[in-house]
């Protein structure tokens, strides 16, 4: 099942990248997608960790929220940059992620980094070291809103 989803994804990628719709090339794409899926199976590289297709619907709920967070904090950092006094208050904080799996922690660490104004410097098992450009940004991370959302979509 997982490999069928992977083959479908490969084929969609093929079609978008090639842009030709002649039958021969489409069938070549089908053949290659299936072959790559079989190779991936032989190599055992498609597992729940690298290919979390089951949590896809939950991602569709998380991404819009994350996109809006990114826009808001990018705007905040933009205002910091153009403000003449440069009112930054850089802070290093430690946060404890509540996710159980590696994938969950990676998603949380990446979300922190993707949001302008906060960067995950070290991501260890039980603790992240996060650099924030303002105290307010650091408090935003410690409030744990993003942490809760990532944990929620880790366990449906």
């Amino acid at each position, binding site marked *: 099942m997982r490999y069928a989803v992977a083959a479908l994804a490969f084929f969609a990628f093929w079609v978008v990248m090639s842009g030709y719709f002649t039958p021969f090339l489409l069938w070549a794409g089908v053949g290659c997608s299936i072959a790559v899926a079989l190779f991936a199976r032989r190599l055992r590289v498609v597992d729940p960790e690298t290919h979390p297709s089951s949590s896809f619907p939950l991602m569709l709920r998380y991404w819009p929220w994350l996109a809006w967070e*990114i826009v808001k904090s*990018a705007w905040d950092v*933009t205002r910091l*940059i153009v403000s003449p006094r440069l009112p930054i208050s*850089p802070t290093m904080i430690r946060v404890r992620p509540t996710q159980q799996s590696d994938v969950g922690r990676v998603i949380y660490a990446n979300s922190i*980094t*993707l949001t*302008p104004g906060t960067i995950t*410097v070290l991501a260890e098992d039980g603790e992240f070291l996060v*650099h924030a450009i303002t105290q307010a940004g650091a408090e935003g991370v410690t409030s744990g809103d993003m942490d809760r959302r990532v944990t929620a979509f880790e366990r449906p």
Partner: protein
Amino acid sequence: MSAQDWIATLLVSAGGVFCVIGAVGLIRMPTFFTRMHAASVIETLGAGLVIAGLMVKAGLSLESGKLAILGLLIFFASPAATHALAKAAWERRREVGRDVGIPPGEDS
């Protein structure tokens, strides 16, 4: 110019403005980590708005599909690259002292 062109121009221009602001921030920020925050404005709002504008311009076509894949690539690759840089800076700082320019007391 059609409404579609106007929206596309507006989005691409706004993205360009954020790229320039990010570049200014890169110069204005005092330390390594604060400069990284300025750069993340470029890779999120800057690149995001430019790609969104180009997608509006391309309409529903293969080009916008490619642009969407490009956006996804940036979305996944940029935090990984940023984290790798930040971690390298942190390790380096541990080796040679305050080389990356974190004022004392900034790390608690």
